[in-house]
């Protein structure tokens, strides 16, 4: 059993670490339970750990690599006294104060909690997918793009991250297909224009992957046309999945109010959840903007909300 903390922050992406910077500077000595190493986006630093060039975070006119940016966020929080536990929270109890948080057998207590567990990449959910992960199938273009030099590969998805990955991968691959189930991209205009102008990139519209093929290594996919339902095979050496995210809220079932799509509910214009003293920020409660800078902004709100709440409720 530990002492009762002023604030515990669960999660360490842009939201959690910004909350940590603000809370640390407000002398709340935040404890950040940052998650544990993984090759998915559910890891310390969050989704940006799997991202290449971040070009839209203010203050970096030449862009910055996602992992580098998150390392800097973390150093800044540490500099002001934030403490870190590099493990995953296994259970929470927000029914009474102080709030209880378990990491395996270890129990932590806090007057306020900031939830910033983010979101993680969705997988296709097809047979062979898990087996071929790391053997031609990847969820991390930055990590694995290098190994597909002069090969033919594909990215599945149509949002900003899919188009950004596909564009990045043309640095290595001889050909990159972007497999998208609709007839237009959701990605922002600048990303779309970049994709359309790239001679190595070909967009396969109205297509979805229905089978992943390969014995020891990925060898290709079977695509189905979403309009005509005609199937055809496409041989590939690499397949990258970027079809979106789901919020990491399993931990909070029955503890906090969730929307139908699984995201946490916060009171409009604040970071307050329905449980007084528990705040949420970043992608775990944002199914609309989902940007590093909006996550950071909401992390700042959560720290300020937690600080004011503590002032009002300290016995």
């Amino acid at each position: 059993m530990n002492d009762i903390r002023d604030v515990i922050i669960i999660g360490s992406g842009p939201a959690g670490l910004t909350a940590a910077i603000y809370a640390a500077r407000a002398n709340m000595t935040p404890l950040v339970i940052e998650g544990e190493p993984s090759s998915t986006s559910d890891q310390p630093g969050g989704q940006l750990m799997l991202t290449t060039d971040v070009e839209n975070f203010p203050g970096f006119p030449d862009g910055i690599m996602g992992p580098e940016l998150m390392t800097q966020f973390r150093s800044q929080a540490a500099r002001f006294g934030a403490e870190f536990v590099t493990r995953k929270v296994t259970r929470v109890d927000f029914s009474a104060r102080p709030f209880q948080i378990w990491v395996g057998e270890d129990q932590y207590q806090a007057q306020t909690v900031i939830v910033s567990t983010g979101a993680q990449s969705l997988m296709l959910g097809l047979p062979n997918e898990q087996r071929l992960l790391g053997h031609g199938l990847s969820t991390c273009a930055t990590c694995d793009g290098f190994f597909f030099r002069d090969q033919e590969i594909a990215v599945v998805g149509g949002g900003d991250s899919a188009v950004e990955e596909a564009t990045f991968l043309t640095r290595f691959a001889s050909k990159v297909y972007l497999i998208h189930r609709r007839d237009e991209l959701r990605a922002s205009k600048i990303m779309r224009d970049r994709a359309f102008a790239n001679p190595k990139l070909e967009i396969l519209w109205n297509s979805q992957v229905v089978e992943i093929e390969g014995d020891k290594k990925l060898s290709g996919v079977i695509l189905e046309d979403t309009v005509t339902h005609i199937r055809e095979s496409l041989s590939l050496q690499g397949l990258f999945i970027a079809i979106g995210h789901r919020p990491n809220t399993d931990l909070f079932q029955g503890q906090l109010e969730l929307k139908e799509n699984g995201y946490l509910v916060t009171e409009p214009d604040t970071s307050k959840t329905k449980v007084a003293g528990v705040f949420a920020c970043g992608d775990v409660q944002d199914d609309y903007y989902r940007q590093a800078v909006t996550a950071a902004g909401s992390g700042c709100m959560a720290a300020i909300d937690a600080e004011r709440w503590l002032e009002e409720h300290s016995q």
Partner: protein
Amino acid sequence: MAEGITDLDMNSFDDAIGSSDTPVLVDFWAEWCGPCKMIAPILEEIAAEQEGIKVAKVNVDDSPDLARRYEIMSIPALIVFENGEPAKKLIGAKPKGALLEEIGEFL
């Protein structure tokens, strides 16, 4: 006394792996790989704490031939070499406990 992590490249790899009398855990990594950076401190701890295994690393940017030889398509990739031959391959970043469990048979 346990040692630190040795950097290996194309020139030093075969000798170092072939002449080792204990298993060697080799971390294939690169500067641009976020998950690789995350497990770096864990590997340093393992190198310092585990007497039964040596830890080495190969930068795939500097030694692409080694990455190709061991068919690496995703990093971080950890390969345990025993008697100079790859005995176990682990792909992806993992927490320390899970990693120790996976390499337990070699410790």
